[in-house]
């Protein structure tokens, strides 16, 4: 154990002094969180609808009927309402702000409704955008409901929308577990493949073979190091994700176990790949060839369900899929059963690669 800890300490010290290692472990994931968070933190299942209400009284207050319509739209929970000033030209505003859809409530709207005159609200936008259809559907539903109320006094059937998650599910919430999976894949696997190649190329394995340190002790020290590194890196990502973007993800015991087993798996896979290459350049090439498709096909950045069927089948055999799926299940959806199953899958695959790496790795010359 002392030898393992001594190796862990020396390796960790060397790693932290290597600027590229520290960059990819700490700075790179934070940059990604900041960039993706800035882009997607305000997007979730809600579509933004910009509304211009021209039907105001002399004091500038919304007329009762227009206020009722806006409140009805908000109540659906499907739209996020943003108001457009009433003194601007809506077409110019749409163009200048690159809006895909906007709603205009005309002057006299309240009067028309009160006096049974046909009143029009106008949805302006790009019909090719998905949000346009959503807005048309929601606005029509709210207007229909109001028409029925006006006709019969009150509506007889209403649709009640309720969130199934603990909180509203947003992209940043989806993204953070994916980023954790991404970082658990990249740092340990890419580093270990290169480290194994470098150790062989520079004769470090032979040097270590002349000491009492065993291969297993060396392998375990590397896994311990990357587990520590991942926890530090993920803690930083969590702080940034939650602190800056208000991400709603929970650090659960299963999430911690998944991070540990995922690190174990990808450190072992990196060692296994490193056995077959003789220099760090080849190691980087082989790790990229395996790592990059995996990070894009395993639901790291977008849901697997959005991918074509054949890609979903490929994702099914990639270990990162189960790591990100398990992390999302426990951190966002609170589905501990799915997370536990994924944990077992990640652990089993990790054990397989660890055993393969330990058996195939030779420190002695042939």
């Amino acid at each position, binding site marked *: 154990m*002392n*030898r393992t*800890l*001594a*190796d862990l*300490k*020396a390796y960790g*010290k*060397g*790693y932290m*002094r*290597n600027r590229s290692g520290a960059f990819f472990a700490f700075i790179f994931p934070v940059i990604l969180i900041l960039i993706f968070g800035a882009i997607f933190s305000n997007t979730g299942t809600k579509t933004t609808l910009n509304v211009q209400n021209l039907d105001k009284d002399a004091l500038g207050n919304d007329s009762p009927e227009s206020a009722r319509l806006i409140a009805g739209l908000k109540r659906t929970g499907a739209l996020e309402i943003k108001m457009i000033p009433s003194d601007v030209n809506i077409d110019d505003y749409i163009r200048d702000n690159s809006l895909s859809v906007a709603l205009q409530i005309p002057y006299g709207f309240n009067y028309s409704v009160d006096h049974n005159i046909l009143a029009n609200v106008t949805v302006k936008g790009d019909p090719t955008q998905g949000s346009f259809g959503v807005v048309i559907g929601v606005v029509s539903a709210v207007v229909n409901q109001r028409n029925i109320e006006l006709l019969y006094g009150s509506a007889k059937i209403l649709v009640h929308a309720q969130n199934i998650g603990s909180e509203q599910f947003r992209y940043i919430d989806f993204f953070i577990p994916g980023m954790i999976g991404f970082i658990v894949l990249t740092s340990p696997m890419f580093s270990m493949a290169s480290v194994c190649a470098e150790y062989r190329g*520079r*004769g*470090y394995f*032979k*040097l*270590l*073979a*002349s*000491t*009492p*340190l065993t291969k297993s002790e060396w392998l375990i020290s590397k896994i311990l190091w990357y587990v520590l590194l991942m926890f530090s890196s993920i803690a930083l990502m969590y702080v940034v994700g939650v602190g800056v973007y208000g991400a709603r993800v929970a650090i659960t015991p299963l999430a911690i176990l998944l991070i540990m087993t995922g690190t174990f798996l990808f450190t072992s896979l990196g060692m296994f790949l490193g056995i077959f290459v003789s220099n760090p350049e080849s190691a980087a090439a082989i790790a990229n060839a395996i790592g990059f498709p995996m990070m894009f096909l395993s639901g790291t950045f977008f849901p697997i369900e959005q991918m074509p069927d054949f890609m979903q089948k490929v994702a099914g055999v990639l270990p990162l899929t189960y790591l990100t799926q398990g992390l999302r299940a426990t951190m966002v959806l609170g589905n501990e059963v799915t997370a536990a199953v994924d944990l077992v899958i990640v652990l089993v695959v990790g054990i397989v690669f660890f055993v393969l790496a330990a058996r195939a790795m030779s*420190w*002695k*010359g*042939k």
Partner: protein
Amino acid sequence: MYGELTAVDHIDLQVFSGEVYSMLGPNGAGKTTTVEILEGLRDPTSGEAKVLGIDLRKAYREVRGKVGVLPQLFEPWDNLRPPEAVSYWSSLFGRDMDAKQVKNLLDLVGLGDKQKVLGARLSGGEKRRLGIAMALVGNPELIFLDEPTTGLDPQARRGLWEVIRDLRKAGKTIFLTTHYLEEAEELADRVAIMNRGKIVASGSPDELITLHGGGTILVLRGAGEEGLKAVGSLGLQAQMDGRDVQVRVPPLQRTKDVIANITRANIPFKDLETIRPVLEDVFFNMVGGKLVEGVVKP
């Protein structure tokens, strides 16, 4: 064996406690393979090897804690400072060293003033010194130094020789491989000349020079044809070199006896020069070429 190539072919050697044993030969002679077999880092295809009385084929792990190893072209870890590297290595051997012990060891190899320098920033000679310090952390009885000065400039090389001499004085047994003739001659108590996987000659430098150096040559300056005839009449082998006569001192004859005979014969010469053979001559005679930077040249 590497495929069809037999890297080390039926060699037989014994190293005695407290000596510097040097294996001298060109690149590819089989020196490193031999050392790695003895370090337990490579399995021989046949034969027997014992280090410190331990049979390597049965218990090479036992040897690990008892020998120090400086591999060929040793490179330290780039991002560790010398004290950190030494401390790390000592922990692997289960002999944790405190800061003072580490400093003493670094002083011993001449790195006392390089405590704050990262491994990557050390010079070639300093890196090898650090390698020797790391080899010493387990206080080994036996130290393998595989071409410790290859690629170093002459000054760094001579500096390392001093370190090796100090280790020898401290009673360490040193197995040194080299392709520098002068290094073997300067440092070794005994030398084995290796070529193409075989030991072609072994013994102390003096023994090798006496037996295989071709004998001492006496140069009689300006002796001319008359001198050549006179030398011949004494039963000595000689040849002309311009106006000089070169007389070969026969093996097993003392040089001063031959000089006394020449003087008594009243052979006319202006000056007398003695050229003693060196290990280079031994190598040339045994291998058939000169050893230049690890390569045999005719």
